[in-house]
């Protein structure tokens, strides 16, 4: 089991320490923003992220560290801790950090932001999304929307839509869809697929119903004709 190591500059005391504990990640504490010191702490597989307390560092030193970290691993989240009076200084530096917390620091706010940013950045546990031709599916919350309108789906409708939307422009036979999506006992045979496609199209609405296309005497595929033309 690898434990995520998160860089913490310049100290890890009080609410910041607590937030690390709550989140379950290990802080690697560098007392300054100098790259030599930071690099010496870095584990072989890199930091999972960084919490930089700009209110306890010279501001330019904090920004330089952010810039250095960004150039090393753009996707790793950087959370900046700032005083209220520093907010203006963040203008035009938005690219250097992913999130910020204004002091006095609250343990649960800090922990929530840390956890949230780590989840968004990690390969696992990330809120995955499928976006396709007006359809948006959040695979973590099981919610789907079409052109911003939330769709009310039954579980099997959701699963069928997810399967099709994550395999766009591929043709699936009814039998394949049955075994891949249903995979357990059902009453309708392959016609069940037709029934569910019909329902999904109704819920997608007229304008988007053709996201699920019938491929004559074969089955169904997800995608639009326009996209196929540009393949």
């Amino acid at each position, binding site marked *: 089991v690898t434990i995520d190591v998160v860089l913490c500059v310049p100290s890890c005391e009080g609410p910041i320490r607590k937030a690390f504990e709550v989140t379950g990640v290990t802080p690697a504490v560098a007392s300054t923003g100098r790259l030599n010191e930071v690099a010496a702490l870095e584990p072989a597989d890199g930091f999972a992220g960084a919490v930089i307390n700009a209110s306890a560092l010279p501001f330019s030193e904090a920004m330089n560290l952010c810039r250095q970290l960004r150039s090393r691993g753009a996707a790793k989240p950087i959370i900046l801790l700032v005083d209220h009076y520093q907010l203006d200084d963040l203008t035009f530096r938005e690219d250097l950090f992913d999130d910020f917390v204004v002091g006095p620091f609250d343990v649960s706010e800090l922990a929530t932001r840390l956890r949230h940013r780590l989840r968004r950045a990690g390969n696992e546990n990330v809120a995955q999304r499928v976006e396709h031709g007006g359809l948006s599916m959040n695979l973590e919350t099981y919610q789907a929307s079409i052109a911003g309108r939330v769709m009310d789906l039954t579980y099997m409708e959701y699963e069928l839509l997810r399967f099709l939307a994550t395999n766009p422009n591929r043709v699936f036979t009814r*039998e394949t869809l049955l075994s891949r999506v249903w995979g357990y006992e059902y009453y309708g*045979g392959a016609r069940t697929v037709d029934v569910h496609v019909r329902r999904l199209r109704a819920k997608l609405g007229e304008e988007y119903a053709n996201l699920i296309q019938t491929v004559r005497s074969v089955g169904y595929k997800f995608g639009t004709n326009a996209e196929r033309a540009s393949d």
Partner: protein
Amino acid sequence: MKSQAEYVLRTVEERGVRFVQLWFTDVLGRHKAFHVTPAELEDALDQGMTFDGSSIDGFSRTQESDVLARPDLSTFQLLPWYQEGAGVARVFCDITNIDGSPFEGCPRQQLRHVLDGARAEGYTFFVAPEIEYFYFEDLDPSRGPQPVDRGSYFDLGPDDIASQLRRRTVLMLEEMGIGVEHAQHEDAPGQHEIDLRYTDAITMADTVMTVRHVVKELARQAGVAASFMPKPLANVPGSGMHTHLSLWRDERNAFIGDGPYGLSDLATKFIAGLVFHAPEITAVTNQWVNSYKRLVPGDEAPVAAGWARYDAAALVRVPSVKPGRIDSTRIEYRSPDTAANPYLAFAVILAAGLRGVAGDYELPKEGERTAPLPESLAQAVDLMAHSKLLLETMGEHQVEWFLRNKRAEWDAYRAQVTPFELERYLPIL
């Protein structure tokens, strides 16, 4: 199963659902529900909801009265007429005994039992009913039903109110994933029809319960009322539930063949089974005293067992199939009314047809009237009492309860002195 539960719980959280209605039906097909809060939901999904069945029609037993409602998570669905943020969802339940075995009074499981039998033979059963009903100004029995089409208080034709309402209902059903083939005004004033697109029988029985609920709810919101009473008005046709049926095997429509009207051998035997057993299953497909006011000569309602292609009063009709649409080959069973318990109705219809297949029944001549359908609930119940088919399909518990309940209903009815008798006899006798 686990991910279905997760899907439901997460959706409840994400969509701000405040209540989840656990839907089920009693033996007569009356709609019942528990309302659980999201806090209770996880337990309900996990362990089911225990309740005392003795107050539910057809659920009471001599010894144990507690039963368990177990949500069928695949039926979880938000009810679109509740507002966002204070949402309400529904999920259909199967009723089981406390030990988890199927409860013999649960119509949904009875249908599933019949479908399991059909599946063991390789058959899938598809149904597509036509739902007829009336819009009335209210449901006050003391002043009698007033169709919304007939009163004309304002310049805006009241006819439009009903048509708008029907349109809104169809859109709402589509939003809930219920396919509607078409909807139209029916013959009688205030009478409308919604034809549903085929699904498997369990889904369709759930759908019929949902449609009845949505039709009534939207009518209520519009300040009128909808009724599925089989024959609310004398002298105009009643409300039926003509049911289109097909059997599929190996993903092919097993009703297609070289026989008459493009029917297979299987289809003709299925029709023969339906025609033969029709009188005894009528107590289930037409379960009220009032149902038999609809099954009278002259209104295109069937009064005898038989089959035909064109005769609109035939019990079993073989609809013509459009060229190129051979997969829509099907038969239409025309006696059921919309006030039947859809689970039991579909179960006995399928069982009757399959009996014909298993027993190699011979198809009677087209147009031949092989037997009369029962003329009253009393006759229907008597036929039911001797039916082995119903005993095997519905089980002893339900048949016994049904007979008791229906005989009591008939006794209450025949003790009445009706306006007909007073008008007819009082002046002259």
